[in-house]
């Protein structure tokens, strides 16, 4: 591989570890809500913490996935599942705080994922894609393991829908040569603002709009009218 055309200023390690911890806690919470056993709680904690990154690393094929290279990821998931199992009520009472943190984390994961892709010289499109996968793959895997239709594909709150424009914005800013720290902040704040606005204003993700059938219906209606006229 040729040398990277730019260097990436990674987010601080502490930020990533905090994100992993929150992901694991929210996974454990989801599992206790679903009434899963300890194995299930640990599995969902791990999947929510590292799932997106694991998919990204498997697709990137740049060696062993990050979550296996450092023991912290698995240790954090184990810790979160113990907390989730024994202190479910405490975790549940922290849900409002966790929702806020979760909203802020969308952009963090997008940045982490997109930067890993840019580091190995992938195109901007692929970097945006891997940013979105990193941010949302965990939730997708969680739903699949619970045998639910993924919330990502159903009309509802903006989550992936906030991650996608944030990822596109991030790679556009990087491409435009904006200072990387600025791009990071814009992405994180942008994703959080989009989700917060959608929640506050009650936006739902749009479903398909069938132009053809719509035109046909209008045409039929107008021809009926003209034949009567």
């Amino acid at each position: 591989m040729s040398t990277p055309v730019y260097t990436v200023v990674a987010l601080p390690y502490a930020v990533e570890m905090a994100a992993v911890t929150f992901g694991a806690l929210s996974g454990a919470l989801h599992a206790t809500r679903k009434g899963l056993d300890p194995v299930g709680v640990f599995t969902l904690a791990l999947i929510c913490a590292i799932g997106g990154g694991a998919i990204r690393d498997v697709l990137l094929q740049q060696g062993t996935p990050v979550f296996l290279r450092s023991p912290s990821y698995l240790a954090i998931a184990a810790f979160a599942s113990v907390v989730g199992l024994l202190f479910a009520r405490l975790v549940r009472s922290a849900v409002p705080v966790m929702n806020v943190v979760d909203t802020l984390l969308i952009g963090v994961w997008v940045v982490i994922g997109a930067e890993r892709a840019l580091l190995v010289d992938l195109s901007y499109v692929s970097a945006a894609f891997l940013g979105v996968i990193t941010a949302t793959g965990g939730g997708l895997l969680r739903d699949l393991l619970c045998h639910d239709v993924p919330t990502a594909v159903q009309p509802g709150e903006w989550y992936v829908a906030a991650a996608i424009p944030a990822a596109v914005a991030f790679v556009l800013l990087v491409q435009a040569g904006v200072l990387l720290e600025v791009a990071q902040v814009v992405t994180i704040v942008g994703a959080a603002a989009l989700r917060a606005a959608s929640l506050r204003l009650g936006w739902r993700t749009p479903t398909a709009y069938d132009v053809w059938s719509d035109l046909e219906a209008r045409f039929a209606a107008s021809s009926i009218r003209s034949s009567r006229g």
Partner: protein
Amino acid sequence: MGIDVLGEAIAGIPLALPAWTQLVAAGVGAVSGAVYAAKRGFDVVGVLLLAVAEGLGGLLLRDTLLQTGTSIVLLDGRYLLVATAAAAVGFFFAGLVDRLEGVILVLDALALGFFCTVGADSALSISLSPVAAVFTGTVTAVGGLVLRDLLAGDAPRVLRPGVFTAAAAFLGALAFVMLETLTSLPSGQSQIIAMLVVFAVRLLAVRLEWRTRAASDISDRVWAVWARSEDGAP
């Protein structure tokens, strides 16, 4: 620059068809994934996700299994752009695409044949066994469908009794690998023949309603035959 070289090695397209056919084939799959999502009432994210899954899933699975480096789908940004465009088509024109059932059937059959030969060829090109190549070809062809169904929360359709899909891809991959290993035909011609096999099997299956069958247990029948021969022995 480095991307082009890598892409060529992994894409396994030095066959009969020009390189852009792979993009078109991915686009065909992506459109049907997007239309499927639109008709299921999924949101814009679902349409995009299922377009990516069905259009690019087969190639992603192949590259993950073969471990030949970052997938062509990520090395060449055009794949994701094609899938995004396909998602837009599915989002706004699901009704129109539905009308063109016959065209879609033909395009899907061609894409199925294309991907099973490309998948098998890339396995052979890194000296995997013919058996592995048949498997890789089949996975490349139907992996996208499986991923789409999983992400939509359904049991994968290709595993259940129904009109030949994976069976057609398997036959195509088998035909391609046999032609490649047993004859000295150029790969391009093997590819065309195998694609015709898939095309014929798939269209005949739809027209004549050939359906794959559920597993049927024959142990009772075997036991009965064996018991009869025991009785008759003395």
